[in-house]
């Protein structure tokens, strides 16, 4: 059917940061579909310039209050890579434990506060506290637990305190770890409840599914979020050292956040990408949840990213329990922070809740940061979101306007974009 359609969603709600969606269809043909990023640029990479290497993680954590552990960790890994600092096994375990807390926290926040209101026909978590207090309570309890995991290791979730170049400056209390272990174990029930809830909710399906490229970290013998090497499902030979040759950022006029592509074109990062790329590394609970949630890899439907996040909640709890076990088995002991041995360039890559996060710094002989590059998950997904909107809109163009609007908003939300994070790209390349 030939049809004209103009939709502009100003400052799309229940996503982090400021973005508008513009859809312009004339005579049944898509003239324009874009996600405008109108957030103010923040220039974090320039803010870092000239600052001491041991201030970097503190400054860069402030990029985001939701994925503060991820930014802190990517920053530390970059500094430690640049300065030849090797951290102990204990420090690695502690950092990974905080990561589990963050993954859980971010996904629970997204699912309960931002996604479920859609399914329950409400505008936010606020009415849900009244209409479905049981659901709201589960969400709040899981969120509090995730906060407590981060707080036990890092002092708090927003923004971690105890993480410094060379290790972790605070030892969690054994009693606290034991207490959390019990709570984590019990939280599987709440996650099962959430999974059942999601299964009962109306599920959107994406029409005209095409194969897509997934990029994430991939590790040996672990579901990689803090460790591992970057990996592409389409076989681009990605390595930590050559990432900047494979992942290209570019400017589009309607966005304060840069877009990114690989040599193969559009790619997706985040929970769905990780579950696809690391299916074999999923633990027993995570894989069972994935199967129950209807994920069969390769799973290309972007709406499934919500389910993949829940799968990762299971995975995070499972991993947190085994990390606590290893820490308790080894026995905790006070360690000094490892010292820098050299200076130069370094890269730190982690899996933030929303996808692969790259920090790269050049540090001079005085230990001052000369230049910095960050590639943020949401910026990498922007092109993918727009591509998906382009194939979604023609397929549903005959539906009522409000339905189209709803499908588009849900699509953008499924990617769980963090717009303010993505608006401080820097074009300095280390040639």
């Amino acid at each position, binding site marked *: 059917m030939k049809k004209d359609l103009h939709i502009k969603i100003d400052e799309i709600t229940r996503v982090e940061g400021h973005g508008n969606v513009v859809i312009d269809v004339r005579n049944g043909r898509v003239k324009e579909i874009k996600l405008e990023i109108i957030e103010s*640029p*923040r220039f974090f990479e320039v803010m870092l310039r000239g*600052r001491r290497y041991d201030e970097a993680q*503190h400054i860069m954590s402030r990029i985001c209050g939701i994925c503060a552990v991820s930014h802190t960790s990517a920053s530390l890994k970059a500094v430690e890579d640049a300065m030849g600092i090797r951290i102990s096994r204990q420090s690695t375990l502690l950092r990974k434990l905080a990561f589990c807390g963050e993954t859980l926290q971010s996904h629970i926040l997204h699912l309960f506060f931002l996604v479920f*209101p859609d399914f329950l026909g409400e505008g936010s978590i*606020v009415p849900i506290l009244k209409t479905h207090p049981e659901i709201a309570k589960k969400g709040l309890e899981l969120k509090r637990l995730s906060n407590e995991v981060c707080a036990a290791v890092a*002092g708090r979730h927003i923004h971690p305190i105890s993480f410094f170049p060379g290790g*972790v400056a*605070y030892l969690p209390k054994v009693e606290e770890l034991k207490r959390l272990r019990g709570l984590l174990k019990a939280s599987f029930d709440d996650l099962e409840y959430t999974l059942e809830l999601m299964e009962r909710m109306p599920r959107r399906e994406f029409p005209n599914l095409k194969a897509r490229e997934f990029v994430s970290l991939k590790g040996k013998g672990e579901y990689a979020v803090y460790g591992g090497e970057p990996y592409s499902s389409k076989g681009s030979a990605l390595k930590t050292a050559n990432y900047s040759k494979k992942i290209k950022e570019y400017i589009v006029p309607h966005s304060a956040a840069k877009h990114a592509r690989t040599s193969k074109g559009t790619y997706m990062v985040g929970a769905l990408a990780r579950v696809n790329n690391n299916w074999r590394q999923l633990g027993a609970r995570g894989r069972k949840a994935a199967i129950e949630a209807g994920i069969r890899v390769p799973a290309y439907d972007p709406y499934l990213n919500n389910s993949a996040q829940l799968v990762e909640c299971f995975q995070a709890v499972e991993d947190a329990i085994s990390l606590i076990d290893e820490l308790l088995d080894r026995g905790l002991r006070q360690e000094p922070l490892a010292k820098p041995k050299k200076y130069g360039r370094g890269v730190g890559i982690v899996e933030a809740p929303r996808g692969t996060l790259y920090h790269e710094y050049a540090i001079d002989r005085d230990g001052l940061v000369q230049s910095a590059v960050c590639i943020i998950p949401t910026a990498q997904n922007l092109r993918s979101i727009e591509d998906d909107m382009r194939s979604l809109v023609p397929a549903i163009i005959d539906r009522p306007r409000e339905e189209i609007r709803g499908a588009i908003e849900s699509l953008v939300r499924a990617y769980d974009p963090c717009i303010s994070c993505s608006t401080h790209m820097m074009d300095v390349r280390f040639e």
Partner: protein
Amino acid sequence: MVLSCENELPEILRQVDIVNFREAMTERHEDYEIAFVEGSISRKEEAHKLRKIRKKARVVVALGACSSTGGLNCLKNRFPMRYLQEEVYGRGAHKKKAFDTDTVRPIDAFIHVDYYIHGCPIPKKEFLSVLTALLMGSVPKITNHPVCVDCKLAGNICVFEKGKTCLGPVTRAGCDAICVTYGGVCWGCRGLVDDPNIGAHTETLKRYGLTADSVMDSFNLYDRCAIKRKR
């Protein structure tokens, strides 16, 4: 941090209607009495929006370091704005609207602010106490003693003792000195006490042969926007 009030959220929502919280809610209304404002100002449109909020709200509270002192964002003010834009977005970027930016300022550079909740992040405790006071119709109490006091109460060993530099003696407390408790130092995220030359923790300063001015010299991560004004 507001969303981390998991236990208190249901009770808060019994007492107040949240009418505008775009990141968490679809509905938005422009009818409010208390406005919590996050973030610093670096664009004309933001200043305009801020002035509109001031007109509508009876009480404006600056929420967090970016809003109350300019916070870390002020690090950007070390460079000329055009240089920043071209550095990040390429040549000619200063002509494009999407990359528009200006000197970062705290919100009280544009409007009158009734109360401040300091810190990056804000302490949950302080947020709840200010909110409670506002709802009860009393005046919120904002701490004006240095972090050293909180740090002593927390039972920490002074980090100067370990040869590190700490901004605790001149920084506004209210955070329970959490950064020192967890193995760090005070970075000064809550800004200076109202009159650092008098209000500073002189006992600590004297013991280590320091003056308020000498400690304030390393006070350049946070509060960079305000420090010139105060001196």
